[in-house]
C-alpha cells in the first residue's frame, strides 16, 4: 500500500511537469495547427542555459528570470525564421521542419556542453518531509507546487488576459480573429514564446528533481506526446489531466512491471496506452470531433 502511494505520488510530481510541457504543445497546436517535435529540445536548452547561468554564479532567481528571457527570444526566433515560411505547407513538411529544428538545437547543446551530466545545485535540504506514512523529498514538493502554480497561472491567463482571449479567438478561427483586429502572426509568435518558456521551466524543475541535466532530457518532448494525445491536442484542461494520468500510469507500470519484465516498461507503457486510446477515442479525452465538409 505504501509502495503504491509512493509510486502514485511520484507519478503526480512527474505528471505535473509533463502537464507543463504538454501545455507548450497544446498552445502551439491550438493557435497554429503545428505539432512542435522540438519541444523536448526547448526543454533541454532551457535546462542547460539555467545550469550555465548558475555555474556563472548568477543567484538562482536571476538565473530563472534570464532563462525565461532567453526562451522568449528563442521562441520568437524559431517562429520567425522557421515556422513562418512553412505556413500553408502540408503537415508532413511542418512535422519535418520541427524535427530538423530539434536536430539543430540538440547539436548546439552537444557542441556547447558535450554529453556529460552537468550537476544542478541542491536548493533544498536532503532530509524528506513526512506526510502521513510517506517520506517526500522537498525538491519533489517544490516541483509539484511550482508546476501546479504555473498551470493555474496559465489557465487564468488564457481565460482572462487580453492576449489569452485573442489566442483563444485565433484557435477558434483565424479569419474571425483577423476580422476582430487581432494580429494572427503576433499570436503565433506569442504562442511559440510561451511554449518555449513552459518547456524551459519544466526542464529546470526536472533538472532539479534529477540533480542534473544531460542530453537524455530531450526525450521528454516525445514522452509528452502520449499526454497531449490522451488529453486531446487542442485542450488545455486535457493537457493537465493527461499529464497526471500518464505520470501515474508510467510510475505504476514501472514500479510493478519493471522488476518482472526486466526494465523498460515505464518508458513504453504510455505509448502502449496511447495506441489503445487512439483506437477507441481518436481525438483524446477532451479533443473536438469534426465532420469534414466537402
Amino acid at each position, binding site marked *: 500500500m505504501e509502495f503504491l502511494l509512493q509510486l502514485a505520488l511520484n507519478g503526480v510530481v512527474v505528471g505535473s511537469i509533463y502537464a507543463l510541457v504538454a501545455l507548450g504543445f497544446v498552445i502551439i497546436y491550438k493557435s497554429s495547427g503545428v*505539432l512542435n517535435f522540438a519541444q523536448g529540445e526547448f526543454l533541454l536548452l532551457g535546462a542547460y542555459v539555467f545550469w550555465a547561468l548558475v555555474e556563472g554564479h548568477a543567484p538562482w532567481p536571476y538565473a530563472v528570470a534570464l532563462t525565461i528571457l532567453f526562451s522568449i527570444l528563442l521562441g520568437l526566433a524559431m517562429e520567425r525564421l*522557421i515556422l513562418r*515560411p*512553412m505556413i500553408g*505547407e502540408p*503537415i*508532413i*513538411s511542418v*512535422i*519535418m*521542419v520541427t*524535427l*530538423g*529544428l*530539434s*536536430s*539543430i*538545437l*540538440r*547539436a*548546439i547543446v*552537444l*557542441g556547447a556542453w558535450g*554529453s556529460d551530466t552537468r550537476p544542478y545545485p541542491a536548493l533544498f535540504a536532503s532530509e524528506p518531509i513526512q506526510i502521513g506514512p510517506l517520506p517526500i523529498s522537498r525538491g519533489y514538493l517544490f516541483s509539484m507546487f511550482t508546476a501546479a502554480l504555473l498551470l493555474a497561472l496559465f489557465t487564468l491567463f488564457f481565460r482572462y488576459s487580453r492576449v489569452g482571449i485573442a489566442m483563444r479567438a485565433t484557435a477558434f478561427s483565424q479569419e474571425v480573429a483577423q476580422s476582430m483586429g487581432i494580429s494572427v502572426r503576433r499570436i503565433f509568435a506569442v504562442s511559440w514564446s510561451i511554449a518555449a518558456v513552459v518547456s524551459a521551466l519544466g526542464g529546470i524543475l526536472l533538472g532539479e528533481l534529477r540533480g542534473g541535466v544531460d542530453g537524455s532530457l530531450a526525450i521528454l518532448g*516525445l514522452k509528452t*506526446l*502520449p499526454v497531449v*494525445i490522451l488529453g486531446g*491536442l487542442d485542450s488545455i484542461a486535457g493537457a493537465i489531466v493527461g499529464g497526471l494520468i500518464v505520470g501515474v500510469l508510467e510510475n505504476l507500470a514501472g514500479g510493478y512491471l519493471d522488476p518482472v*519484465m*526486466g526494465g*523498460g*516498461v515505464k*518508458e*513504453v507503457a504510455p*505509448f*502502449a496506452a*496511447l*495506441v489503445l486510446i*487512439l*483506437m477507441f477515442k*481518436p*481525438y483524446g479525452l477532451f479533443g473536438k470531433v469534426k465532420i*469534414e465538409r*466537402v
Partner: protein
Amino acid sequence: MRSGDFRTSYEADMAVFDTALARWLLAGFVAALLLFPLIGTSFWLDVSSRVGIAVIAALGLNILTGFTGQISLGNAAFLAVGAYTTAWLAGKGVPFIIAMYVSGLVSALVGMVFGIPSLRLKGLYLAIATLAAHFIVAFTVVHWEAVTGGVNGISIPPAQIGSFTFDSDQRLYYVILAAAIFHLWFAKNLFRTRMGKAFIAVRDHDISAEVMGVDVFRHKLYAFGVSSFFVGVAGSLLAYQAKIISPENFPLSVAIDQLGMIIIGGLGSVLGSIFGAVFITLLPEVLRIVTGALAGQLPQLVQLFAALKLGVFGLTIVLFLIFEPDGMAARWHRIKAYWKLYPFSY
C-alpha cells in the same frame, strides 16, 4: 535534334522510359554501377551497399508517406522487424532469397497491424500512433531475448543460396544492387497501374477517392503493407550487410533520417527516393572526410563531429523545406524539361 515527342499507340504513350536516349542513359548508369566494385575501395563498397539499402527503405517509406499521404515515424521499427526476422531465419539455415522475402512479409504484417489506427486517424494523430509503434517494437526487441539476443544483439551468417555464399563485400553489393533495381522497377509499375493510382488518390483527396469507388481504409492498409514489405526487405539486407545487429541499429533517428530522405528527394517520387537516400547516406561520410582533412588546422573539429553531423542534418532538412520544398526530383524534372527543348526552352 529532339523536338518534343510524338507517339502512335497508347502502349508507347504509357512506357516508363519514354525515349531511346533515356533508355541508353539508364543502361549506361547501370553498367557503371555493375563495374564499380572492380575499382571501388572497401570503404566505398560499404557505403554504396548502405546507399542501396537506404534506397529500398526510403522507397518503402515514400510509398506510404509520399504517395499515400500517411505520415509514419515507425520506419526504424519496421526495418528492425525485417532485420530480426532475417537474423532468426538465417540462423536456422533458411536460404537467402526466402529469408529476405519472409522478412518482408512479417514486416508487412506488423506494418498493417499498426496501420489499423489509420482507419480513424489522420495527419498528426497517425504520426504519433506510428511513433508508438516504434517504441513498442523497440521494447519488444530488447526484451524478446530468445529471438533477438536482447541488448547484446545477434549475429547473422552470410547470405546463402544452395552452396553459393555471398560472403564477400563485392558479392553482397551485387545482391543489394539487384534488389534495389528490382524494387524500384516494381514501384514504378505499381504507380502507373490501378492500386498505385488509388494510393495517390487517397493522399490527394480521401473523401473524393472514396466517392470514386476506392475503399480508402483498405488501400491505406495495403499501403502500410506494401511499404513495410519494402522496408522489411531493406531490413533483411541490412542484417546480412551488418553481420551483427542490436537495438542500436534501429534508433528513432533512423526513422527521421528516412523521412529526411524522402523530403529532400521528393515526396511521392520514385526517383526522389533514390536522390534522397544517396544524399542523406553520403552526407555524414562527406562530412567525415572534410573534418578529417581539416583536423590538422582545427583539431577540436574531431570532438565536435557528432554535434556537427546532427546539426548539418537538421540544417539541411530545414533549408530544403524552406527553399526547395518539392525536393530534388522536382528540380531534376525542371532541368530535364529545359534540356528537352533546348535551345528553344523559352
